[in-house]
C-alpha cells in the first residue's frame, strides 16, 4: 500500500466514495449561496462563512437569524447548538486518527463534517483510516462546498424556489440513506428508533436545533445501557457488506 504512493488506492476509493456526496452537497451549497446573497452578504462574506464554518445547516440557520435582525450572540448560540453534534463525532473519530501527525490531526478535525464523519467511520470499520483517504475525501468536499457557495451566490435568483425541484429534500433523504448503511451494527435498530422518536418529540415540544443534540443523546444512551455482549463481533464486516451495496 505504502509503495503505491503515486496512485494511492486509498485516495482513489476516497474520491469514489465522496463523488455521490458531492452531487448531494453542491445543490445545498448553491442554496446556501443564494440565500446568503439574498440576505445581503457580499461574495467574500458568503464564501468566507462557508470557509470558516463548513457546516451548511448552521450557516443557513445563522442567515435566517441575521435576516430577522437577531443579535450576534444569539446567532452564535444557534450555530454552536446546531454544531454541537460534532463533539460526538470528534470523540468517535479521534480513535481512528490517532496515528495522524499532529498538524494533520488538527486539520482533520477542521474538516469533520457530517459526510466526512460517516465515511471515516465506515472506512475505519474496514481497514486503517489513512491520511490519504481522509484528506482526499475531506478536502474535495471542502473545496466543492466553497465553489458551490460561490456559484449559488452568483446565480442568485436562478434557484428561486428550491422546493420545486425537491432540492431542499436532498439532505433529509441523504442522511436517511446514509444512516441505513450502518444498519448491520448490532445496536442499530434500538439506537436509530430511539433517536428518531426522541428527536421528533423534542422537535415538536422544544423546537430546533435541540432535537439534534438531545435526540442523539437518547439513542447513544440506549447503546450505552444495552448488554455489551450484544455488540456484533463482525460489525466491521457487516459495515463492509452494506458499504459495498451502497456503491
Amino acid at each position: 500500500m505504502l509503495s503505491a504512493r503515486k496512485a494511492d488506492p486509498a485516495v482513489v476509493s476516497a474520491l469514489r466514495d465522496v463523488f455521490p456526496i458531492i452531487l448531494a452537497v453542491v445543490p445545498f451549497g448553491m442554496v446556501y449561496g443564494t440565500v446568503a446573497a439574498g440576505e445581503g452578504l457580499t461574495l467574500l462574506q458568503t464564501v468566507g462563512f462557508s470557509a470558516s464554518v463548513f457546516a451548511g445547516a448552521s450557516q443557513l440557520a445563522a442567515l435566517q437569524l441575521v435576516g430577522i435582525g437577531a443579535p450576534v450572540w444569539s446567532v452564535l448560540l444557534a450555530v454552536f447548538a446546531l454544531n454541537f453534534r460534532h463533539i460526538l463525532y470528534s470523540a468517535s473519530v479521534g480513535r481512528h486518527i490517532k496515528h495522524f501527525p499532529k498538524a494533520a490531526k488538527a486539520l482533520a478535525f477542521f474538516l469533520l463534517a457530517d459526510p466526512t464523519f460517516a465515511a471515516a467511520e465506515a472506512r475505519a470499520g474496514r481497514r486503517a483510516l489513512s491520511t490519504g483517504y481522509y484528506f482526499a475525501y475531506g478536502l474535495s468536499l471542502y473545496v466543492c462546498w466553497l465553489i458551490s457557495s460561490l456559484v449559488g451566490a452568483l446565480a442568485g435568483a436562478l434557484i428561486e424556489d428550491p422546493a420545486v425541484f425537491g432540492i431542499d429534500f436532498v439532505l433529509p433523504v441523504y442522511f436517511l440513506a446514509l444512516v441505513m448503511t450502518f444498519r448491520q451494527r448490532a445496536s442499530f435498530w434500538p439506537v436509530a428508533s430511539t433517536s428518531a422518536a426522541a428527536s421528533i418529540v423534542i422537535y415538536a415540544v422544544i423546537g430546533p436545533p435541540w432535537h439534534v443534540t438531545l435526540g442523539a443523546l437518547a439513542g447513544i444512551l440506549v447503546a450505552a445501557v444495552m448488554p455489551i455482549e450484544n455488540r456484533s463481533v463482525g460489525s466491521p464486516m457487516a459495515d463492509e457488506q452494506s458499504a459495498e451495496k451502497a456503491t
Partner: protein
Amino acid sequence: MSDIWLIVLLAGILTYLTRIGGHLLIKIVGTLPPRLEAALDAVPAAVLTTIFAPVMVSGDWPERGALVLCGILAFRFPLIGTVAIGAGFVAIARAIL
C-alpha cells in the same frame, strides 16, 4: 468590522471547538470503558437519524411519504439512487398535491 465578519470569525472558531472538543475530552478521560466505546459506536446512527426524522412532523404528506419510501428503498438501492428517487418523488408529489 461588520457584524457579518464577526459572525464569520466567531462561528468558525466555535464550530472548530465542537469538532475537536470531543477528542480533547476523551484524551483527558483516558482509556475508554467498554460502555463508552459502545456508546461512541452508536453515535453515527443516533446523530444522523435526528437530522431527518423530524421531517415526519415538520414536513407535509409528500415529504413524509418520500421518507418512508426511501427508508424501504435504502435496503436495496445504492445511496445516490435512493437520494435521487426521494428528491424526485417529493418534487412530483408537491406538484400534484
